[in-house]
C-alpha cells in the first residue's frame, strides 16, 4: 500500500508526461543473513528450553529437559528402533499420500475441468471433507482390520480432502485465455490437462502436497495407536503409556524435524518444477 501512496503517477500524469515505472527486478537477500534470520527463532526457543530446564524453572514433570531427550534419542538409535520406526512410518505415509493425493488430484482435475464432473464429484467431496477422518477409525477397523491396509487407507482418506480442494481451486483458477490459446493449437483432453492445466495449477498442487504430508503425520498418530508394533505414531503411544515425558518431547522434536524436512523437500520441488517463480511477485 505504501508504494501506491508514494507513487508519483498522479502528478506525472497531470503534467502530461509518462514516467517509466521502477523495475521490480530480482531482489535476493544475502544467503547468510537469510539463513541466520531463519534459524534465529527456533534457536531462541531451544535456548529458552535449555535455560528453563537447567535453572529449574521448568520441572521435568512439565517438560523434560534437553539432556533427558537427547538420552532418549541415544537409546532409540542404539537399539536401532529409530531407523525402523521412521522407515515403517515413511512407507505408510508414502503409500497413503500417494493413493490419497493421487485420487484427490484426479478428482480435483475432473471436477475443475467439467461441469458434469463437478456435479458428480464436488458435493460428495465437500461432504467428505467435513467428516473428520478420525471419526472413521472404528468403521475402517471393521472394514479393513487393524493391519497395514487400515493404516494406509486412513492416511489416504485424510490426504485426499485437501488435495482435492486445492486442485479444484487451482484448475478453476487457470487463465482462460491460456486455455483458449492451447485449444487454438489443437490441444484436447489429456494433452490439454497435462500440458497446460496441471502446470498452471502446480502452485496449488504443491501447496496441497505440503498439507497432505503434514496431515499424514496426524494420520500416523491415529493409525499407529492401533495394532502397530513400530512407527513414530506408535512411539507417541508408547511414551504416553509408559509415562515417559522424555520420549514425549522427543516425539515432538521428531515431528518438528519432519515438518522441516517436508518443507525443504517441497521447496526443492518448487524450484525444480516452477523456475519462473524464483522471485515472488508480491515482494
Amino acid at each position, binding site marked *: 500500500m505504501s508504494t501506491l501512496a508514494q507513487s508519483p503517477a498522479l502528478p506525472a500524469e497531470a503534467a502530461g508526461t509518462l514516467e517509466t515505472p521502477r523495475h521490480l527486478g530480482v531482489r535476493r537477500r544475502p544467503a547468510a543473513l537469510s539463513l541466520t534470520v531463519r534459524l534465529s527463532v527456533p534457536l531462541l526457543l531451544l535456548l529458552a528450553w535449555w535455560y528453563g530446564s537447567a535453572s529449574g524453572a521448568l520441572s521435568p514433570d512439565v517438560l523434560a529437559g534437553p539432556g533427558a531427550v537427547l538420552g532418549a534419542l541415544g537409546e532409540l538409535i542404539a537399539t536401532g528402533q529409530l531407523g525402523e520406526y521412521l522407515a515403517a512410518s515413511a512407507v505408510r505415509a508414502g503409500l497413503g499420500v500417494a493413493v490419497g493425493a493421487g485420487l484427490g488430484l484426479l478428482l480435483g482435475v475432473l471436477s475443475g475441468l467439467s461441469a458434469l464432473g463437478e456435479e458428480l464429484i464436488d458435493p460428495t467431496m465437500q461432504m467428505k471433507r467435513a467428516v473428520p477422518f478420525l471419526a472413521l477409525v472404528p468403521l475402517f477397523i471393521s472394514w479393513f*482390520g*487393524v493391519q497395514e*491396509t487400515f493404516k494406509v487407507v486412513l492416511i489416504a482418506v485424510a490426504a485426499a480432502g485437501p488435495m482435492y480442494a486445492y486442485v479444484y481451486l487451482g484448475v478453476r483458477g487457470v487463465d482462460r485465455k491460456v486455455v483458449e490459446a492451447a485449444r487454438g493449437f489443437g490441444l484436447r483432453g489429456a494433452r490439454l490437462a497435462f500440458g497446460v492445466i496441471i502446470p498452471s495449477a502446480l502452485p496449488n498442487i504443491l501447496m496441497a502436497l505440503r498439507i497432505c504430508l503434514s496431515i499424514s503425520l496426524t494420520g500416523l498418530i491415529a493409525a499407529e495407536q*492401533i*495394532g502397530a508394533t513400530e512407527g513414530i505414531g506408535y512411539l507417541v503411544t508408547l511414551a504416553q503409556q509408559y509415562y515417559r515425558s522424555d520420549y514425549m518431547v522427543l516425539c515432538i522434536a521428531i515431528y518438528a524435524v519432519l515438518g522441516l524436512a517436508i518443507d525443504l523437500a517441497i521447496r526443492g520441488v518448487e524450484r525444480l518444477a516452477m523456475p519462473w517463480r524464483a522471485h515472488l511477485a508480491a515482494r
Partner: protein
Amino acid sequence: MRIPHRLLPVLTALVVTVTACSSAGASQGAADAAVLKLQDPGNAGPLAYAKKTGILEQRLAKVGAKVEWGGSYASFTATIDAVRSGSVNVLQGAISPVLGYLANSKDIKIFSFTDRVTDPAAPKTDGLVVPAGSPVKDIKELAGKQVAVNKGGRGEYLLLLALEQAGVPVDQVKRVYLNPDQAASAFATGKVDAWWAIVRAYPEVIAKGARVLVHSNALPDQDISIYAARNELLDRHPEAVRTYLDVVRELTEEAKKSPEKFQNVFLQQGPTALSGERLQIELDKSRYANPPRPATAADGAFVTDVASIFTKYGVLPAAIDPASVIHEFRKAAA
C-alpha cells in the same frame, strides 16, 4: 461437452476399485483355523516371554493351532474395536471394561479368572490419590470435588464402590472421564482434585508424591482380572484356548520364582524398558501374582457384583446374565 463422456469410464473404474478393496478387506477376517490372534505383549510379562521363546507356538502346534502376534493398542476402546472386527480374538483385562463390551455384543466369553492377591506384603497396584498438598484427608471430603476415572473401567468401578462404602452420595462427586495417560497430566497440573490411578499409572503418581486416600484392597473389590476369547474360537477350538491358558499359567508360576527374565524381555533400552524403582515394583508384583485359572459357574458372582454397581449408577444400561458370558472348559468338553 466431450470430456464428460470420457469421464464415465474413469468414474466407473473408481467405483469398481473401491468396491473391490472393501470386499477384499471384509473377507480377511473370515478365515478361522484355530489361530489365536493376540495383541503385542510388549516388553514384559509371561506372554512377552512366550513370544520370545516360542513356547506358545510349540505347545499350540501339538493341538494343531497357531498364534498370530498382532500390534499394540493405545486404549481398551481401540482393543475392543479390534476384537469386534476379529483382528484380535483372545484378550486380557478386568471384568469392568469387558462388561461394557458385553452389554452391546455377545461375541466374546470369559474363560479364565485370576484371583485377587490378598497377601498384605504384596505391592499395592492402585489407589485413590490426591496431590500431596491437598486439603482432602478422607474420601468423605470428596463431595463437590472432581475425580478422574477411566470410563466404564476399573477406576470408575472402584470409585463408585468406595463412595458407596463411605456413604457419600455418588452424584455429589463429579466423575471426570479420562484415560490414564490424560488423567496423569490433568492430575499433575491440578485440573482434577483426585484420581483413581490404576496399573502403571499408580507407581508413577506415588513416585511424584501423591497421597493415597484408599486402596482397592480395603474395599469388597470384585473386579478381578480375566481372559476372554471370541465365541467362534471357544466353540470350535476350546483345546487351543485351554493350551494358551495352561502356558500363561505355567509361565506366571515361573515368573513368581524368577521374575527377572520376565522383565525387559526384548529390549534393555527405550521407552518400554524399565530400570531402578520402576523395575523393582514390577519384579515385586510378579512375585506375588496369582496365576489365571479356568472359569467356573461360581465366578458368575464376580460378574454380577461388578455389573450391579455399574447398572445401579447408570454406567451400564442393563444387568448382564453371567451364564451367558462365562465359558467353562469342562462343560464344553463333555
